[in-house]
């Protein structure tokens, strides 16, 4: 293990740095870097450093572009940034990469078929990641409407599919979805 990690676990006697309120740290104070081993390092004000940092969204569904939270190796929040507009470009790129990788939600572009059988529906769709078949059970529980036009679908394995704007789908797909819900 690298030396920076062991230092962190020794940090026990020091009081933890509590700067999790969005107002306390500005995005411009943060710097994210990735080393050769793909390990993420977060530096605040160029004097405090954390390794193996995780970047997560606080509200991935309702506020996907705001409230970005940085967690340390153990999953304890280091800080949260309300508005990612203030990050420098390199950091922002890494943040976007990380978020992109973490949230594997596919966007459904069109629906090829939906078959309904006794509370279970079998979907065959075209997504931004390619074709996919999946099964949804109890549509009333696992298809969430977010606002009036957005749909989040959770399949039996816990994979996520999103339809950001229902009205943008073609009529055929829309018809099939409407009939299922």
């Amino acid at each position, binding site marked *: 293990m690298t030396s920076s990690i062991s230092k962190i676990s020794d940090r026990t006697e020091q009081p933890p740095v509590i700067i999790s309120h969005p107002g306390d740290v500005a995005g411009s104070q943060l710097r994210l870097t990735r080393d050769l*081993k*793909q390990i993420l390092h977060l530096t605040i004000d160029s004097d405090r450093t954390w390794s193996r940092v995780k970047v997560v969204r606080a509200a991935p569904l309702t506020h996907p572009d705001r409230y970005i939270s940085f967690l340390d190796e153990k999953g304890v929040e280091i800080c949260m940034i309300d508005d990612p507009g203030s990050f420098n470009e390199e950091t922002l790129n890494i943040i976007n990469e990380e978020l992109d990788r*973490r*949230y*594997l939600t596919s966007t459904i572009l069109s629906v090829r078929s939906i078959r309904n059988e*006794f509370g279970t529906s079998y979907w065959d769709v075209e997504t931004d990641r390619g074709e996919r*078949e999946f099964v949804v059970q109890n549509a009333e529980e696992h298809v969430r409407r977010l606002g009036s036009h957005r749909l989040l679908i959770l399949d039996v394995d816990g994979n996520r599919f999103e339809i950001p704007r229902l009205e943008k789908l073609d009529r055929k797909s829309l018809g099939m979805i409407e009939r299922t819900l």
Partner: protein
Amino acid sequence: MSQFNESKSHFIEQLPETVLDKVGKAIGPFEEVTIQVTTDMVDTHRYGSRWLVVTNHRLLVLAPDDSTPEDMQISMQSLKTVHMEPMVGGGRLMLVPYDGESVCLFYSNSLSLKFAEVAEGIKRLIDGDEPNLPLEMDQTRCHKCNRLLPEKGGICPACIKKTDTLFRLLGFIMPYKTQALLLVILTLFTAMLQLAPPYIIKFIIDDVLTTGQSADQLYFYVGLLFGLSVILWVSEIVRRWLNTWVGFRAIEDLRTGLFGALQLLPLRFYDKRKIGSLISRMNNDSELVEDYMIFDAPFILSNAVLVIGIIILLFTMNWELALFVLLPVPPIIIVASLVWDYLEDYWRRWSIQWSRLTTHISESINGIRVIKAFSQEAYEGERFEEHNQSLRKASVSSERSWLVFFLMTNFFMSFGAFFVWYFGGLQILDNKLQLGELMAFIAYIWMLYTPLQWFSDYYSFIVRAFAGAERIFEVIDANSEPFDQTDAVPMPLIKGHVNFRKAAFAYDPGKNVLRDIDLEVRPNEMIGLVGESGVGKSTLINLITRFYDASRGSIEIDGVDIRDIRLADLRSQIGLVAQQSFLFNGTIAENIAYSKQDASFEEILRASYAANAHEFIIKKPDGYDMLVGEQGRRLAGGEKQRIAIARAILHDPKILILDEATSSLDTATEKKIQEAIARLVAGRTTFAIAHRLSTLRAANRLVVLDAGRIAETGSHTELMARKGIFYRLVKTQQESSAIMAVKG
């Protein structure tokens, strides 16, 4: 996707040709492939597949197409470690070499269980061990039709035939087969009797009225009609009486079976489902089946007999006219099959809206205190109105579509009558047909069309009832806890030696809550489990009670793997005071005696004294006979806890588990319970969880959990001397409350 069908092991999947070639080129002749699996994502942006092939010498990551630039190879010696990185909706497997960049394989959640095993297997290979992969993995696709299964390892709804469901339903009638047989015979008999009156009318018109013969024959025919009505009436009474007798008994058995199955299902089954939807299975689905057995099935049977009988009669009377009668039938069938899907969709939407409304009602009644406390009555009202409105809309549109369907078929049918009047009338004018025959024809037409029209309706009843029956059978068929495992080791007298061997557990694959738990507990030892909230303390004890089974490693009691111990023996010797004390709707005495139904009142008293519950019970006007209300609503939190402790004491278990058993008690009461517990733990192996560390004073050993692992073990003094996690926990508590300070 042939790899799902023909693989030898779940971790040696069938390779496509191109990959097979690549593997052939990459590995030596005597290299043994131990793992050979596919992912379902190329990277985070594309679905597709990558193959991971592991031999004792190297790991290959291969693309399924001819292109090679993305293919990679790592030798086993240069691999430092592998780890899984769970993400939201999937994850990645990172192969980390000593130097150079890590190689990642991406997979969606559908495969995370498989890759969790693969990661562990590779880790063991790195250590030079056998990969030791599990032999069984839950199937994701049906092995017959290869369709995705609604539930891993579950049944394929496409492959269970409708007739199977029918036969299983019939199976519930089998205990009453004499009555059922009688019922069928009676049904056929009454149906055939119904065919007679129009035919008699034909004779009255043709042989009596139009020929102007004497009234003698009229007496005879009318007498016959009357006699038939009486017979019909009597047999109808007997039929219905029998029908309800058999039907309700079968339904009772079905419901008992369902409830019994629900009791035996493992907790994992409940984790995935809303209580409301299970209750709806219990209520609505069995009602659907009930309606079917009591009303629809006999109706269908008798009407089917009627329809067939009428058609035969019509053709023997006059085949030309009979053809005209049948003319509207094909269009009706075509229309019905065309609109059928839509009707079903409407009906499904309606039932979804119903279940939303019911869920909301039950939730708001359960949470009425919270609603009132935050004065959100108006908000709940609005939400209800929303659901109510959607239900109305769904009801209106489903009713409307039924109506349109109904009227349309009716319209087609009236054509049949027109044809018969017209062509029959012509035949009468030509003297080819008699008036009585025509009248009988017309009567038969309506007897024929009415059931025909309802057949589509019956079809919907059947579909609904079968859907209900299948949902019920799904619960009945779900893997229940292995209570009746025949090769289980009986263990009527547990000594209390508990040994965790490298046990690990995950509620969701890949997200281990516990890992590498090694802990040996001697008989009669008291273990205090400590750790911050969410670290997995309750989970650890859930493994002892076998509410869940360890995903890896094992737990032994007296040297026997608990998976091999007879479940009834195991549970009957474990006493649990759970974190959320649950009381049943009944009296205090009944709740204490829940663990030992035949306990005498003296025993109950003794247990309640020992739990220090007696002092508050005696103050209640009804004492031990006080009704506690649903979920013990009428008792204080601390009172409920003490009843739960008394229940465990009465159970007299060999292994005692106290999960936050004293969290709702004030310090004075807790002190009393301390004494009770001290008395109780003698002669038992005890696991106690407590946030208030003073509660664990009596423990022989404290086990500190951190990040799912055992971080520290030792006596209170040892752990304090160590100045680790426990020391810090104690210090924080001392700071926050001087009263609760732990004495060394």
